[in-house]
């Protein structure tokens, strides 16, 4: 439905905010575009919508090159965080605007508005002024307005960023079936991992204007593409290691089996979700690491244990109840060797750090 090829964009004469991004979205698929503030998420969305011209690269919509198609003919639906509803029109007037602009007859417009409002559960508010609605209702109207033009692609720019967590989760849960039913592809821009995990078929991780990984959530969280993605997603501990003949040495004397990794310096990722404490379903062939409990904190429906692994690298583990050992006690960590990930050691530390702090005109 959408294919983005080598897209580069920037503002004025400034540096590229996007530096060669490739992305594809299938019909009915929801891709979460995840990245910190200033990573270029909104710029990418604006280029796809046609609100901004890319410096290089192509935007292909429904198989046809749309790079030079003006925004009003791209057939994309756009939902902003701040709703952007017309204050002088009521709910039905806002939702019906797109169908009217597409030249539908009044009766068709009314039918379309009624159907879409029913889909988002707001049929009873059709003749309300939009400023009389709550934030969640306004966002539903904005979504209905975008869906009413039957877009090929739905672009959602932090759509629920200003709403509180429970409402946001409910709206996200409603969103997915609506997208599936519409047959449109959807790109959801967010900086919030929970939002991305709640809706995404695939997650696109954008760091410093580059797409670092585009994969199913499970893959991103257990096999991040590089150390920056691992750090941004916070998936576990990254241990500096030296690989020799299929084994990595960490912390001076601990050896972890990494049969596929090339020789040389590397970072070994311990995904927190896959790490077990000694005594928790031990298996033969587990890799074993010594660690020290350095903290334990109650966090509502679970406890967060902080353990120090090699070289003082810390790892946070969630457990249903605290350990009955004191802080400072030694622990054994076990992990299936197949769950260890070897990542290339960055020769320049934190390559994207400067780009991540670069000012971004839109967020």
């Amino acid at each position, binding site marked *: 439905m959408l294919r983005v090829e080598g897209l580069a964009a920037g503002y004025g004469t400034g540096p590229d905010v996007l530096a060669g991004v490739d992305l594809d979205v299938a019909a009915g698929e929801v891709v979460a575009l995840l990245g910190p503030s200033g990573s270029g998420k909104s710029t990418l969305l604006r280029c796809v*919508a*046609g*609100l901004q011209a890319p410096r290089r690269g192509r935007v292909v919509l429904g198989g046809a090159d749309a790079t030079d198609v*003006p*925004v*009003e*003919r*791209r057939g*994309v*639906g*756009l939902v*902003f965080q*701040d709703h*952007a509803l*017309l*204050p*002088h029109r009521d709910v039905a007037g806002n939702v019906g*605007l*797109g169908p009217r*602009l*597409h030249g539908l007859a009044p009766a068709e417009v009314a039918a379309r508005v009624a159907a879409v409002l029913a889909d988002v559960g707001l049929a009873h508010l059709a003749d309300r002024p939009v400023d009389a609605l709550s934030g969640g209702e306004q966002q539903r109207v*904005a979504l209905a*307005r*975008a869906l009413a*033009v039957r877009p090929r692609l739905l*672009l959602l720019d932090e759509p629920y960023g200003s709403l509180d967590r429970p409402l946001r989760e409910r709206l996200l849960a409603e969103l997915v079936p609506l997208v599936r039913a519409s047959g449109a592809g959807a790109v959801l821009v967010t900086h919030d991992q929970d939002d991305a995990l709640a809706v995404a078929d695939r997650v696109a991780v954008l760091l410093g204007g580059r797409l670092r990984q585009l994969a199913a959530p499970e893959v991103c969280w257990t096999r991040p593409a590089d150390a920056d993605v691992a750090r941004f997603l916070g998936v576990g501990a990254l241990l500096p290691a030296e690989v020799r003949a299929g084994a990595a040495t960490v912390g001076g004397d601990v050896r972890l089996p990494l049969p596929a990794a090339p020789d040389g310096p590397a970072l070994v990722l311990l995904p927190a979700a896959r790490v077990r404490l000694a005594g928790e379903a031990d298996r033969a062939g587990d890799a074993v690491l010594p660690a020290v409990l350095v903290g334990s904190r109650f966090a509502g429906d679970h406890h967060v244990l902080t353990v120090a692994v090699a070289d003082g690298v810390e790892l946070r583990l969630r457990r249903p109840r605290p350990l009955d050992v004191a802080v400072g006690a030694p622990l054994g960590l076990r992990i299936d060797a197949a769950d260890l990930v070897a990542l290339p050691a960055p020769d320049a530390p934190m390559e994207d750090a400067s780009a991540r702090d670069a000012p971004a005109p839109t967020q």
Partner: protein
Amino acid sequence: MRRGRTALAVGPLLFLAVLFVWPLGRVLALGLVGAEGGPLTPVAAVLTDPALRAAAWFTLWQAALSTLLTLAVGIPVAAVLSRLEFRGRRGVEAAVLVPFVLPTVVVGAAFVALLGALPGDVPRRGLVPIILAHAFFNVSVVVRTVGGLWQHLDPAPALAARGLGATPLRAFAVATLPRLRTAIAAAAVVVFLFTFTSFGVVLVLGGSGAATIEVEIHRAATRFLDLRTAAALSVVQLAAVAATLAVYGRLRRRGGTERLRRAAAARRPLRSTADRAAVAGALGLLAVLQGAPLAALVLRSLRVGDGWSLAHYRRLDAPTREAVLAVAPLEALANSVAIATAATAIALVLGLSAAVAAAGGARLARLADGALMLPLGTSAVTLGLGLLLTFRSGPLAGRGSVLLVPLAQALIATPFVVRTVLPVLRGIDDRLREAVATLGATPRRVRREVDLPIVSRAGLVAAGFAFAIAVGEFGATVFVARASNPTVPVAIERALGLPGAVNLGRALALSVLLAALTGLVVLLVDRVRVGAVGRF
């Protein structure tokens, strides 16, 4: 498209060049360059004339006293309106706005009516009536400027101070007043400026002894036909106004870092007797200062001899026998409405063009925006004098002056149109346009769906405000209106200057009609609620 927008600035700039820059240049030339004695002799002559020096001195301290009184009334009212929630609050807020747009001569007439009706030895002309009338007008400036900020101030710091044991007054002094200081100072400067350049009120209420620079300009130009002295006085006036505006500019650049709240969050319902007393006190102040003169105006316009009747109103369609007005008062009213309507149309076209151009951001357009504010800082009398000097001959002289009056009024009303429309236009979120564009709207259609509806609401408000200003305009109109087609404010001032109960009754009846007209327009427009009219 951007070039098209910038081209919109050309009209307003041309208008300004012909009706403002050129006339003002004539005033400056005449006032600064003496005919025989060399440069600056007219100004020097004015500054050494004891009577004119006295007028300048009086102008200064009546403005200072007026400002103090206005602040003394306005700040407590602003406090009550922005901190407390009570039934009728919105009505009071709207009502406070009305005096600001009432024509100056109507306010003068209202105080003539009030002070004339009071028993005993009250001053009916001179300093005290002038100061009261100035406060009547300008309380709304303080309420809108100070209250406008106050109602959005986070009350938490003051509550924290109370929590630490401060009395309410002390909490106000340490936690609230410092944050309001800039707004209060800005309001004070604006009020000072308005009262310093006040004309209609002083002309009506000043009597023989109390004359300001404005009145002296008018007197020199129209009674003594000494245009050079009038121009020199205008130069002095302009210098003082420029100095005041410089202070104002500095104040506006300061401040603005305050964290603001939604107004409703800062207001609380009445809880104690003290709260109710505060509301009663504020409403009482407004009733005495603003309600009483208007009530007196209406009542005395109905008073004929010892009884009540509509005789003064019935007499309005009869031609006056005196040579003062060539037409029946009602004819003046029709005249006024027609002229003000034309002025409103001109001001709307110019103001909307300038605002649209300025929102585009090109340099020429920003110049037009700034330049259109200049007439606001120039006294109406100086504008009128300039127009008189410039258009004594030519197409706008004689019969052509029928056109000159609406043009003069448009010159004064246009800045208000720009000030009402431009912030609305600038405030339109670009995302609104982008969202509509993605729905399938071409750039032209986006303007029709987004910009047009929003701007036309603001334009409606601006039109109402411009009409109210134009229909009540006196300072410039009195210089250019011909005796054969006077406007209502001119007719009222003439009638107030004549002896006899019939003339007074006629002036009061006309004042009531004019006040009703402007008040109605402003209240209607206030219902549209776009931005805040009268905030500076």
